[in-house]
């Protein structure tokens, strides 16, 4: 995640944007959104350069989206100002600062003046920047307008934090950490607060008690009820959460702190914030799932293993359920979830394997991995409510149900690619059922591309260039990480092998000692030799146990994470695919438009159209445009989702790793102690 780039910081100033929004709201709400878009689209449509157009359309989208959404949403009033205020009242978590920030432009100026290098671009109008949108959409699941306010407070808080240089924890080391943290804050202002989802989940975790003191201190020192301090205070909880594991002040923690401090007028507003997180966290309904009893069923040709899945939870229709599923079903579930929730990392199933499917170890391994997958899905607040997931757990006629669902959603859940990261974008999901039917009848969105004679088309294939550097960098990073982890895993396996080799060598050694002992040359030497042999036997056992332990902890963690990386790659691929579709549809749209312009050059939107053919063409253009917008919207949304997810994954991964590192380290220490104990006892008794 590269937040050093200027793109991240080129977020337009919120109030300017807001004013634009409100203006737009006023002006555009009378028109049909589509036509207005169309007009604008027309105005820009003559540009031949696609990427240029893309960026411009994105720029338009930023405002258009706002207009669309503000129009669509009920609770927003026509007036931008009131609308904001109401939003603040009703959904303060997304815009706690709206009321305050408006008055605090000057404050912003002052507070951010010290951090010239970062905040300068803040006030520049990087209008065409994609990331502006991304920054806007970065923060929550809410509307863009709400989000618009976030980035600024982000930067604000970072400066405050930097100045403060809190000393987290009671350890001497923390100086380094806090320095790092602050340094980090400089570079990742964007990431430090967001992810309310992640925050909610981490509410109970990553707690650093000492930080309380600091926060209290911080809050105490800011008894001045100046709004800037209030902003910062409210900002703080949001920004302390960073991927850094030892910056462990969680949102909830600070939220709780904020909760308990009743010093401020808007405490109600702030307290609602943690509540929503709390509720989000509490929304994880407890599930208990296990996968057991692998049974080989079927005859020679269709032999497979069926597992029985037992689950119990409030969310299930009968509170408990027990069904039998096979590996293909698990895979179906994975693909289905992938299709239902774009941009979300789905816990991965085990790999496909054609040969050796019936070996006991393999079956056991698979069973464990599938159980882990189900458990992780059920622990995710979004995924646990997924219809398909619940159906998976409860349905008796699963094969029918699943096939039906796969067909309805066009998710391609069956016969999927073995590579978990290769995804299939469902047209139904993308465009909505009706349009999708239309599209599918034509052979898919990329039908034109694929129709070329002998699979080479007349016009050059539109290539999707990912405009957002973030994704490119992330993709690279993940590729590197995957490579490293795979090697690490291999290395771990080698260690395991060698350790077992050593264990057997030690065993032979102890046998040899025993045979010398049998000679009974002298009593003393015999006793010692027997004890020596016994000692080495015990050492061998401990070695074997140790290696088993290691493979169970670190090995499993690494393996899980490597497969999760596939899932992560999958969501990146989803974005790429969406972008690709977008490019195609825009292409088509442009073609259609130019065609229309050619055929009816003197078309005026206000003039009534009588010509049937003209109407049809217009209709088609409109459809394409709408399609284009839908795709674009999804494409943008997925960007944010992906960023959230990746952040969440980072935290998850760090946690997992740290946990398994700790467990394996502890087990190493324990076995070491055992070893020493054995040797010492031998020494004491016999030497």
């Amino acid at each position: 995640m590269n937040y050093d780039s200027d793109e991240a910081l080129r977020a337009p100033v919120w109030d300017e944007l807001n004013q634009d929004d409100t203006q737009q709201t006023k002006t555009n709400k009378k028109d049909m959104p589509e036509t207005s878009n169309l007009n604008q689209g027309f105005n820009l449509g003559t540009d031949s350069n696609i990427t240029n157009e893309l960026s411009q359309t994105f720029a338009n989208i930023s405002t258009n989206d706002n207009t669309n959404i503000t129009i669509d949403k009920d609770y927003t009033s026509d007036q931008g100002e009131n609308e904001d205020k109401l939003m603040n009242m009703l959904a303060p978590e997304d815009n706690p600062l709206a009321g305050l920030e408006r008055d605090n432009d000057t404050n912003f100026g002052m507070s951010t003046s010290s951090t010239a290098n970062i905040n300068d671009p803040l006030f520049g109008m990087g209008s065409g920047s994609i990331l502006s949108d991304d920054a806007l959409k970065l923060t929550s699941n809410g509307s863009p307008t709400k989000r618009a306010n976030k980035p600024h407070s982000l930067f604000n808080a970072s400066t405050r934090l930097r100045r403060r240089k809190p000393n987290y924890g009671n350890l001497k080391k923390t100086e380094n950490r806090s320095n790092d943290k602050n340094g980090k804050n400089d570079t990742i202002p964007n990431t430090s607060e967001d992810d309310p989802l992640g925050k909610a989940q981490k509410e109970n975790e990553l707690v650093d008690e000492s930080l309380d003191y600091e926060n209290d201190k911080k809050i105490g020192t800011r008894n001045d009820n100046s709004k800037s301090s209030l902003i910062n205070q409210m900002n703080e909880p949001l920004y302390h959460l960073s991927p850094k594991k030892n910056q462990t002040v969680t949102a909830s923690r600070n939220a709780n702190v904020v909760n308990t401090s009743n010093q401020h007028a808007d405490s109600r507003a702030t307290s609602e914030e943690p509540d929503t997180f709390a509720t989000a966290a509490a929304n994880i309904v407890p599930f208990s799932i296990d996968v057991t009893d692998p049974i080989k069923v079927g005859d020679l040709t269709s032999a497979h293993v069926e597992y029985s899945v037992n689950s119990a939870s409030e969310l299930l229709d009968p509170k408990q359920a027990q069904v039998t599923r096979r590996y293909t079903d698990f895979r179906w579930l994975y693909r289905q979830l992938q299709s239902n929730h774009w941009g979300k990392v789905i816990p991965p199933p085990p790999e496909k394997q054609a040969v050796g499917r019936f070996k006991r170890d393999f079956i056991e391994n698979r069973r464990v991995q599938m159980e882990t997958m189900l458990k992780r899905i059920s622990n995710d607040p979004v995924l646990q409510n997924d219809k398909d997931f619940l159906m998976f757990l409860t349905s008796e006629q699963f094969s029918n149900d699943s096939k039906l669902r796969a067909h309805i959603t066009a998710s391609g859940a069956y016969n999927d690619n073995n590579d978990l990261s290769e995804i299939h974008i469902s047209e139904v999901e993308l465009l909505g059922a009706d349009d999708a039917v239309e599209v599918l009848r034509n052979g898919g969105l990329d039908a034109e591309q694929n129709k070329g004679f002998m699979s080479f088309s007349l016009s050059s294939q539109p290539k999707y260039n990912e405009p957002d550097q973030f994704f490119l960098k992330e993709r690279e990073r993940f590729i590197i990480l995957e490579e490293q982890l795979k090697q690490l895993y291999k290395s771990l396996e080698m260690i395991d092998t060698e350790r077992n080799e050593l264990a057997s060598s030690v065993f032979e050694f102890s046998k040899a000692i025993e045979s010398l002992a049998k000679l009974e040359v002298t009593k003393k030497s015999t006793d010692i030799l027997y004890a020596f042999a016994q000692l080495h036997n015990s050492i061998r056992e401990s070695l074997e146990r140790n290696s088993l332990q290691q493979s169970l902890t670190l090995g499993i963690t690494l393996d899980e994470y490597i497969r999760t990386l596939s899932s992560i790659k999958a969501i990146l691929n989803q974005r790429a695919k969406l972008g690709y579709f977008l490019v195609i549809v825009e292409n088509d749209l442009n073609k259609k438009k130019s065609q229309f312009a050619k055929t009816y050059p003197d078309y005026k939107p206000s003039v009534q159209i009588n010509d049937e053919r003209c109407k049809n063409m217009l209709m088609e253009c409109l459809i394409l445009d709408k399609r284009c917008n839908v795709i674009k919207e999804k494409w943008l949304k997925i960007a944010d989702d992906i960023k959230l997810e990746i952040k969440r994954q980072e935290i998850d991964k760090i946690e997992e790793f740290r946990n398994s590192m700790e467990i394996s380290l502890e087990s190493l220490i324990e076995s070491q102690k055992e070893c020493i104990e054995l040797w010492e006892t031998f020494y004491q008794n016999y030497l």
Partner: protein
Amino acid sequence: MSSSTPYEDHDPLTDNPFADHSSAVTEPSHIRPPDDNDDDDDDKESTLEHEPVIQEEESNQLAVNGAHSDASQETIPSTGTVAANKNIQQEEQTSSEPVPTVDITKVLPERKDIGIYSLIIKVTGLERTGSISNKRENPTIIFDCSTNIPTFRKRKHKKLRKSIEEFQNLFKFLNNNIPESFIPSIPSTYTNYGINNEEDHDTTINNFQEWFNRICGDPLILRNEELAFFIESDYGTYIPINPSVAPISGLKRKTLKQLAPPFDESLPLAEFRPMVKSIYVNVQNIQEKLLKASKTRRLLVQEENEFGQKFGTLTTNNENESKLYKRYGKIMTAVGDINSIIATMDMATLYDGLEWIVQDSYIVKESLTNRHFIMRDLLQAQQNCKNKQEMTRKLRSRRDANPIKVEDAIRSLKIASTTEQNLTLKLHRVTGNMVIERSEWVNWYEKWLIKSIKMHTLRRIEYERKKLSLLERVRSEVRRADMKGGLSRLGRHTVSKKEDEVSQSTQGDSWTGEVRRHSQQEINTVLHTEFDKSLSIESTHPEGTSADTALNSENKDTNMLDAKSAAHMLGISTYNGR
């Protein structure tokens, strides 16, 4: 070993009508009295041929003297070493062939007054010079020696230097010429520590000191003049002066070994050879398995190092995270390195120790084989003697005997019977000595084996403890990565926020109920491993603090020394190989 004639009354001359009778006939030709300074065992072999003839004559003269060997020794002028030899030897022959266990000193006069002659050798140094192979296999031992053995010209020698080659020459000589003794084999000249190593230096010196101690404990060896020649010769020039008797070797030896061993009266020795052979085979087996385990361990080390390295270079977004990974990776690598040290230590302690046992048991086994050969020779000699007797008897009963033939027969009979006598005496000596040396050797074997195991154990413990301290050092960091670590997973808050919770302290180990007090010095060696430098590059405080606390506690400990803890500390083994 049955002879047709009983030894006690054997008179080789009874059948010789011309001979005088003598009561003392069983004259072991190669026995010297304990206080005869000049003579070598070797001389006996060389004069074996002369013995029978002179023996007869002188035995008559000495018949009256009875058992007092000393008196007669003085009275009879020695005309030369050979003659003196004979005279003195005759004294010893007054004793009839002993029941082996009773009068061993008669058979082995060297063992009588065992403390009279002493040789004290102290090895002071070891030099490795020259080419690589010379450095390894032919270093120079530097030692001092002081003695009161008459074969030596000087009583004290200082800073003697001898190369291993010379040692080997001496050993070969002694091995061939003292069949009664188990000559200790030369220990290995280099250890698995590596020849440029101080530990190797010390171990080799200790080994040679041990060898010298064993040599000096054997009275038969002490009296051998070759030993004196060896010690007093110039550096690099020693070659045995006296001719050496070559034992049966090569193909003949191998074929003879195939035959069943002759009936062995001495039960301990009869059992001993198979046991020694089993020891030889089994210890070699152990060595092999140990080597294999060591090699596997080294492979494991490679993998561990790689794992640690790869772990340390995991890319992360988070600086602290990557720091943690780097540290963890470094610790894993360091653990791997310690494992490789352990592998070396294994070899250097146990393997090398067992090596000497292997060599020695081989020598013992071969000496026992030689004894079997003597037994076989004796049987043949007895057979021969019987034949000759038969012959002479036949001649005696004939009226018309050719006087030349008769003389021949008688002469050959004499030779045969004396040979038989000598062999018998020799066998008795060998058997007697070997029985004594057997128990000595077994004791040495036990002592040496236990010593090797002890060294091995001590080293192992030291390094396993170091491993533990390394692991614990990183444990606190991993735990504190976030507050979800440690006991918090069990729902309890972290008990102690101390950074250096060390489980091995002067109070003993924290994980066991047994009180094992360690001296602060031991704790320090364990806590501060060789890898501290490479590890502390990354870390900040922990090393410093633990070092400080260690020092502080050290001060405290030394201040709190009282009688009880002092006594206890004296009792603690602080030996770590030196």
